[in-house]
């Protein structure tokens, strides 16, 4: 009712203004090519702001001058112009804009035309993501966007990847971006909210990549500031598939293939004969210094303790632990739409076996998206996703600080005796293959159900959109979202297992639950006056995040057969809950003049329960502007070369919150006890001044389209993060090892280039190239305590130093092997080599010997089609330069004999010094090596420079139009080979901080797939 009054008023005003010129009533329909009405399309009189909306029947009526020209437009369709020429009926048939995705960009709290967008964002289609990874959307982003880095060295299916947008946004608070799915902020729960860290787990795996229509990464303040306090690390907006009006399609996508270790060199150990020789040398060298080092044994005596000292047996345990694993994936989806209702429904199943024996990832997922036009003014969208994700795997080093889990793939690999055979002569598995005596046969450890870690995650993501249109200019959207995750984790260490033996078995069951309730109400306004167009939003949002867990464990099991908790004796129970709450006000204004000059501003005010009453509210804002030069008259002569050219700049602030829920409160923990009595202890120092981490972001760049064929986007950004939330080290004497405070500044800046080119576009052959390049640096600008260095990480291996990169390695510098003595040498002072060398690790000083973050990263995708689209080929190459990794496994596998009593060594460690091999790469091995050359030093810092073939897809679109809409068969190889790498004996893929763990190395896979569309 209200709406009608407003419309009538508006119509009246319009009538008054144009009464003099209007002398003809024109009516007609606007439909798509198949005749379906395009409800909500607009008809505008060219050169004026006069216009009407098309009703749900697709009809319109408007009074115009006889010589007027009408323009019909509809989002996702190409606009069409028709002169009235005195006719009373003008019908439009709009064709779909195939470049729709390119032209409309999903942004914070809405969508807008890409040309009007003044911020910085990259968008990738859901198909492109799903093509790269059916498992997880983050892994699908590798190499596809500038400024976005996905890093993981874990090939375990279901493990987490790190996503980093425009550098490292924080030192101690979170660095992962905010995910928004269909307008609802997804649970900010991290893996630590949802599991105990026996092994890496990615929460994002619960989203099926095949349900995704597009993904947009918001990078600068103009794009992301509307998310205020959670936008400092960038925002990733996921839009799921929608039903389309008119066409009903049912499609099936299926694929199957094999996965294996991408590069076996990543984990190659010494052969049997090599190991025997190594033991002899390590033992003798130790015996010569002090027989105690070799437990009083000579080298020969030690070598005789191997399973087969003859040197005739050599087992490659890498092949026993890792395998070729199967993977298959199926998805059935339905897209349909009538006049008022549009539906998308999808059901998917994915099963990926891990390359380590006995491990897998499995997901069942379903999604239904319904959009319904209830009436002229009310539209309802309901979206529901449910997924069940199961994983089974083994402990890894993800929670390990200096040390190695015995029952981890890496632990078993390094401690297996290469002279032992996997099987006994009778065909049973040989139990005694461990050189240290602490591990077991990998088949028995990993493939026998005696020791594993399982997760069952259920996630339900519901959202409701209510769109109320008051007038053509004013509408209100209410979005309600509820994201519920329930993860059950089971741990079983059977009585006979490595880890379970001491407790006579351990079974533990954890239930983690998180829920995120979000409600946002946004009022939208959009109007134009002549060449002036104004739009804006104002809104209010609340977000309620709850998480908690319950666990119970039992030990003393009768045998390996049963692991239900009730079978054992009670061991422990626990449980706790956490909650955070946030409320926000937000708004923005966008203005453009003649699609030529653009200006935008946004504002958000957030209050969070994670901060104290005096500092919990903060404001975040941005301003931005753009100028489309190609619309200027002086550019008309070069309008081909500059088909479109826009320069843009933005500036604004974003924030970041502490990861802890209650960091500002002085606390006594009650989760303690002594004997059977309860206890409380001082667990957190008060810190009521704790505040937001704030970043100031500047972005400048241009978007240039040449000849309507090549798009070039170049941007420079500068992100200065101040009042960093810092886990300041505290003296143990205070009772605390660290405390949270706002100190220090961090600078991230970089240049991003994206080029998208239609190289050849003929009927028989098309070739397009997408290329992206990022130069990036993250520099620590200011540190607390007058800029004192902060040393952190495992054994103090990293340093924060002013002017140096984030994740700088701070370690002694390895000089090499003394060719005369065979001893290893470190520089006493890495910065002053005149101080000479030392053989003792303990006497070597430390310096910055590398950094984890690469300088240059990027990727290139080439896509070709042949024979009118019958065949297609695409391949993605990624590259990175300027970074290093820390080879943690190398610390164990290159111990120069130190660990010879318990571990085998890497194959390349066989090149050690002997009097006959003086130019060897490694020093002479000494059992229990007193010099400790193996300890963390620059020796373990390896370059990650590489160019890698990430993906090759070959497809064939079989022409079967008669029965099916389309049939496509394809073959895809993921990580098939390395094109070039600086350090060939290691896989250069590593986590953001450069700490290589590789229990499950990076994998490669080859799959065959089919897409059928009815």
């Amino acid at each position: 009712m209200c709406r009608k009054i407003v419309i009538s008023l508006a119509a009246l005003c319009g009538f008054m203004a144009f009464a003099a010129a209007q002398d003809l009533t024109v009516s007609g329909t606007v439909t798509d090519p198949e005749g379906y009405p395009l409800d909500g399309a607009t008809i505008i009189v060219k050169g004026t702001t006069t216009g009407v909306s098309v009703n749900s029947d697709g009809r319109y009526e408007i009074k115009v001058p006889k010589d007027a020209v009408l323009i019909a437009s509809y989002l996702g369709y190409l606009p069409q112009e028709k002169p009235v020429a005195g006719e009373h009926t003008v019908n439009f048939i709009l064709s779909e804009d195939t470049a729709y995705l390119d032209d409309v960009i999903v942004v914070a709290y809405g969508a807008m035309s890409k040309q009007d967008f003044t911020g910085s964002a990259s968008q990738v289609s859901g198909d492109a993501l799903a093509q790269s990874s059916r498992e997880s959307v983050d892994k699908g982003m590798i190499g596809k966007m500038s400024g976005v880095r996905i890093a993981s060295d874990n090939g375990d299916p279901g493990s987490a990847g790190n996503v980093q947008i425009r550098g490292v946004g924080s030192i101690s608070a979170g660095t992962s971006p905010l995910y928004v799915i269909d307008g609802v902020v997804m649970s900010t729960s991290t893996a630590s909210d949802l599991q105990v860290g026996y092994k890496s787990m990615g929460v994002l795996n619960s989203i099926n990549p095949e349900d995704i229509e597009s993904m947009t990464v918001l990078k600068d303040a103009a794009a992301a500031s509307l998310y205020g306090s959670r936008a400092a690390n960038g925002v990733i907006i996921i839009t799921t598939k929608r039903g389309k009006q008119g066409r009903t399609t049912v499609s099936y996508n299926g694929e199957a293939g094999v996965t294996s270790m991408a590069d076996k060199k990543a984990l190659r150990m010494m052969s049997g004969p090599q190991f025997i020789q190594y033991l002899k040398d390590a033992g003798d060298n130790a015996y010569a210094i002090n027989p105690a080092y070799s437990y009083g044994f000579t080298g020969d005596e030690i070598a005789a303790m191997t399973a087969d000292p003859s040197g005739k047996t050599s087992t490659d345990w890498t092949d026993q632990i890792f395998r070729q694993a199967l993977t298959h994936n199926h998805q059935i989806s339905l897209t349909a739409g009538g006049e008022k209702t549009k539906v998308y429904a999808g059901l998917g199943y994915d099963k990926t076996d891990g390359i380590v024996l006995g491990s897998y990832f499995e997901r069942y997922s379903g999604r239904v998206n319904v959009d319904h036009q209830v009436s002229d003014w009310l539209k309802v969208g309901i979206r529901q996703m449910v997924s069940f994700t199961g994983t089974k795997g083994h402990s890894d080093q993800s929670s390990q600080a200096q040390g190695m889990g015995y029952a981890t793939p890496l632990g078993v690999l390094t401690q297996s005796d290469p002279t032992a055979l996997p099987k006994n002569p009778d065909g049973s598995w040989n139990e005694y293959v461990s050189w240290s005596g602490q591990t077991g046969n990998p088949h028995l450890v990993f493939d026998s159900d005696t020791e594993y870690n399982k997760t069952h995650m259920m996630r339900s993501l519901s959202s409701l959109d209510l769109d109320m249109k008051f007038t053509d200019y004013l509408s209100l959207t209410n979005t309600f979202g509820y994201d519920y995750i329930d993860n059950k984790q089971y741990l079983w260490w059977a009585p006979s297992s490595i880890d379970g033996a001491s407790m006579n078995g351990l079974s533990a069951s954890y239930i983690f639950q998180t829920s995120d309730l979000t409600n946002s109400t946004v009022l939208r306004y959009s109007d134009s006056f002549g060449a002036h167009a104004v739009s804006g939003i104002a809104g209010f949002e609340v977000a309620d995040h709850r998480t908690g867990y319950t666990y119970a464990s039992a030990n003393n099991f009768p045998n390996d057969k049963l692991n239900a908790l009730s079978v054992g004796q009670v061991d422990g129970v626990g449980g706790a809950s956490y909650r955070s709450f946030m409320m926000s006000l937000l708004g923005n204004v966008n203005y453009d003049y003649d699609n030529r000059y653009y200006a935008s501003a946004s504002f958000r005010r957030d209050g969070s329960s994670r901060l104290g009453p005096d500092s919990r509210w903060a404001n975040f804002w941005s301003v931005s502007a753009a100028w489309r030069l190609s619309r200027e008259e002086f550019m008309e002569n070069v309008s081909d070369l500059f088909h479109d050219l826009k320069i843009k700049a933005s500036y604004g602030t974003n924030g970041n919150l502490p990861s802890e829920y209650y960091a500002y409160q002085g606390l006594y923990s009650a989760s303690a006890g002594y004997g059977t009595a309860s206890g409380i202890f001082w667990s957190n120092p008060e810190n009521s001044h704790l505040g937001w981490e704030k970043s100031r972001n500047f972005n400048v760049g241009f978007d240039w389209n040449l000849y309507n064929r090549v798009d070039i986007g170049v941007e420079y950004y500068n992100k200065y993060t101040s009042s960093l939330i810092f886990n300041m080290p505290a003296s143990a004497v205070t009772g605390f090892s660290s405390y949270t405070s706002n100190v220090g500044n961090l600078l991230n800046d970089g240049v991003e280039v994206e080029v998208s080119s239609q190289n050849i576009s003929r009927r028989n052959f098309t070739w397009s190239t997408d290329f992206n390049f990022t130069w990036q640096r993250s520099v620590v600008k200011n540190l607390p305590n007058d800029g004192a260095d902060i040393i952190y990480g495992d054994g103090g291996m990293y340093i924060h130093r002013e002017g140096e990169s984030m994740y700088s390695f701070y370690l002694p510098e390895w000089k090499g092997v003394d060719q005369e003595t065979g001893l290893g040498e470190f520089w006493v002072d890495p910065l002053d080599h005149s101080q000479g060398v030392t053989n003792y690790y303990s006497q070597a000083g430390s310096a910055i010997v590398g950094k984890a973050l690469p300088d240059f990263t990027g990727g290139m995708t080439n896509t070709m089609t042949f024979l009118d689209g019958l065949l297609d080929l695409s391949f993605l190459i990624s590259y990175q330069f300027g970074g290093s990794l820390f080879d943690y496994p190398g610390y164990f596998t290159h111990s120069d004999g130190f660990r010879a009593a318990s571990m085998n060594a890497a194959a390349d460690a066989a090149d050690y010094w002997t009097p006959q091999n003086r130019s060897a790469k490694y020093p002479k091995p000494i059992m229990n090596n007193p010099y400790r050359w193996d300890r963390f030093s620059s020796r373990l810092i390896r370059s990650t420079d590489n160019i890698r073939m990430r993906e090759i897809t070959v497809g064939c679109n079989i022409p079967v139009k008669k029965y099916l809409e389309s049939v496509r068969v394809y073959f895809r190889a993921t990580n098939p080979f390395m094109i070039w790498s600086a350090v060939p004996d290691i896989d250069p893929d590593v986590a953001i901080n450069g700490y290589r763990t590789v229990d499950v190395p990076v994998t490669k896979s080859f799959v065959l797939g089919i897409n059928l569309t009815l």
Partner: protein
Amino acid sequence: MLACLIMAAACEALDQAPSTSVTTDTAITSVEDLANAVNGAYYVATYGTMLTVASEMSIYADLVGPDSYQPASSGQNASRLAGFSMTANDTYNAYYYLYAAIASVNSALEKAALLEDQEAAAPYVAELYAMRGLFHFHLATYFAPIPTSGSENQLGLVLADKVFDIDYIGKRASLQDTYDFIIGDFTKAVETGLNKSRNTGHLNYWAALALRARANLYAGNYAAALNDAEEVLEASPYKLYTVDNYTKVWSQEGADEMIMEYLQTDTYNAQRYAPGYYTSPRGYSEYGVSPEFYAWMQSTPDDIRSQMVADCTVAPGGDPDYNTGYYPLKYPGNAGASVPAYVNNIKVIRLSEMLMIAAEAALAQGQDAAPYVNTLRRNRITGYADVSSVTLDDILDERRKEFFAEGQIAFDLWRNRRTVVNGSLSTGPRDYRTVLPLPKEEIDLSKGLLEQNPGYGN
């Protein structure tokens, strides 16, 4: 209007409280809370992880002692301690958990002073002082030399006598001041005199007195040490173990002569870092005793203590997971523990030690030490005949027999300026390795204010 209501409701929701903690200002408002705070400080000191007083550090003085032997080396902390290979990178836990416990003690002391019922609070306040003394004492034995060792290193501890601001950086007090502080805290505990009854797992009057005797002995205050030991021997409710019960007491809680022990339970224990797992042939097996020690103990079969070392030199059924060797039997598991190797109360001080302290202090002052030694031996050796005089060597040997595997032996030798000789390894009383390096984290943070022990770089 609606928006205002939502805003008001939501604003309240911005105050969230944790489910497992209470705010500092509401934590201790009653004597009951104070009792819980006492327990909490023990919980922190004995936190279930590596290198605390409930894990490897409880047998530190044995691992570096003359009879230490590693039947297996799986590269864990016990063999690293035994091999003197601990660097400043490795000692954080040994330092941190005790100071964290002390911080809780100091915080509780502050809040105890505000309680109304001071009379009811007094025994807890006394216990808190004793705890502060004991935790400092532990730290002093790990990170500072024993005053009577003759070490040139005269650096003591950073003394945590109150609640500090979070950015506090302390300087090390002198060795003398450190021991004065420790003895002073025990004295504060003793002077209230309110908690004289047995209280298993807690520091009562007698425990404070017994520990003061030990601290005085370490500091060379022999007269004071003798006085305190005498008082405990004469007036405390504890009784010496006997030949009859000696082999059975190790699994008991609150056994006859146990003055102070740290409680360990199925819920709260150090798991594989516990001494029981290190002394198990199926565990880490990094703390056994040497064959020579075993033979020496067996040479006096009438001494019940000869039964406290096990000959595990033959693996049952040839089991290759069984680490053969000789092991102490003092960690059999608390009675009823679900995992015996994990759950053993940590012996801090018991009545026998009062005899040994008295003997050592008496001898140092030229008095007759034999009666103390005779008393102990009469309760250990079947058919024992008293001796008329004893030497320091006799006392030290007696200690080796009585207290091995209880975290004392190397300290006994260094305290008396003896060299610890273990096979080819010998560590003199002034050797830099008699103390552990302060954690690198602390040294780095202090920017030069905190001095590292000599021999460990800067």
